[in-house]
């Protein structure tokens, strides 16, 4: 038996055939130490167990070596009740908004990837100003989106023996005004089973116009390369382990966090994690030095190195841009 606790909540992992006797011994041990247990809250060992508000599903553990983690149903219901009461009142005190952010963040931690976190931006902004009534439209949309997300998001999957060879993904972007109508370009390189694939996308003005006005959009471009790569190679990436290398610290940190303080960046990060969750892509994001980023070439329309390495060009898929799922 392996046992630990979170304050007064004790949990233990046990083999099926020893679960009854282990439970008996554990309860007797508490009794010997003089501690009373709450019989109403205790759960006998089960393959689907709820611990600390989280559901651990071990039904696929022995056969497929997969542990599924998802929010407890009542937590999802409770979040919906809180959101409904806020929407009905059309007002939200700061304490309520902070509490909601905490609850939603906890639920997100049990969902696939960082899906959903990007939609918390308007709530974080709301906390910086005075409480408003009626609520601003983008806050109302955020609240509705939160409610939908916790219902549709997939559970988190944990592999016990991860024998998958990771696919390497590099992304990059460039903004060179002298290139005229080719000013903004994003590029990506995918290395899988020694096969090298690359893509690039010349970003049109219409996409740039969606973002907040500023002198340079490098941060958003670096981010845009990321969902574009997932969308372009989603067939290859489905259920794969991926090492995603980014040479821009801000973009990498935003992807890891799952949101950005900048609303336009947050929308792109939202698309990235929605694609990852949709195709169940297990991603680890890390920084790569700019000089070692092999996707620098395609992001500058320079394909010399990739052609020398016998890389294959893949047309970029940009259909996710039309959906624009997280622009709130």
């Amino acid at each position, binding site marked *: 038996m392996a046992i*630990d606790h979170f304050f*007064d909540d*004790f949990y233990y*992992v046990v083999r099926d055939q020893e679960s009854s006797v282990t439970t008996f011994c554990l309860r007797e041990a508490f009794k010997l130490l003089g501690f*009373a247990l709450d019989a109403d809250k205790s759960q006998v060992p089960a393959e689907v167990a*709820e611990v600390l508000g989280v559901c651990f599903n*071990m039904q696929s553990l*022995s056969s497929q070596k997969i542990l599924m983690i998802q929010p407890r149903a009542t937590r999802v*219901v409770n979040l919906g009740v809180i959101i409904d009461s806020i929407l009905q009142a059309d007002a939200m005190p700061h304490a309520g908004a902070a509490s909601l952010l905490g609850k939603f963040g906890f639920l997100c931690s049990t969902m696939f990837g960082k899906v959903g976190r990007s939609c918390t931006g308007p709530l974080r902004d709301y906390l910086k100003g005075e409480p408003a009534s009626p609520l601003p439209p983008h806050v109302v949309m955020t609240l509705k989106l939160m409610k939908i997300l916790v219902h549709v998001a997939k559970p988190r999957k944990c592999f016990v023996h991860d024998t998958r060879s990771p696919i390497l993904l590099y992304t990059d972007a460039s903004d060179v005004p002298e290139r005229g109508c080719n000013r903004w370009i994003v590029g990506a390189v995918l290395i899988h089973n020694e096969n090298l694939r690359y893509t690039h996308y010349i970003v049109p003005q219409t996409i740039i116009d969606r973002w907040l006005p500023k002198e340079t959009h490098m941060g958003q471009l670096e981010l845009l390369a990321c969902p574009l790569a997932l969308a372009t190679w989603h067939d290859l990436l489905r259920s794969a382990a991926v090492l995603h290398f980014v040479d821009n610290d801000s973009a990498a940190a935003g992807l890891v966090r799952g949101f950005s303080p900048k609303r336009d960046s947050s929308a792109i990060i939202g698309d990235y994690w929605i694609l990852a969750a949709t195709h169940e892509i297990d991603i680890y994001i890390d920084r790569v030095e700019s000089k070692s980023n092999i996707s620098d070439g395609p992001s500058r329309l320079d394909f010399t190195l990739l052609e020398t390495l016998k890389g294959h060009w893949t047309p970029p898929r940009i259909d996710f841009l039309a959906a624009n799922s997280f622009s709130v």
Partner: protein
Amino acid sequence: MARTMAGPYTVSDMLGKHGKFFNVVPSFGLQQGHAADGFIKYRRIDDHTASHNNLAANSKQKIVMAMVDYLAALIKAAARKTEFKLKVGTEDMKNAYRQIPLADSQVSISITAIYNPLTREPELYEIFG
């Protein structure tokens, strides 16, 4: 289980028993979602920050929180060691830390109080755990 509180007492009772330096710890209700019947759930919290007890306390040990990720790691580690089915069980301590005894010397600074709307007077209680 032995009682974890004693009272109600009046202020003069407490002055007589613990002297003029006894300290009252206020409490508040923390909303914790909804119960299965739809009613809002509240947990009573003793506010040792408001009573300034926390200012007088010092911790020499960092408490590592074994939360959800820890249990996931525990299950994965166990699954690597066996081909048998695994199960998870839980035990909850009745009344939580009310079972952990308070040192006798600390009882006088952890008196809690509630307002009795019928008598319109505060009621004071000693807490032993």
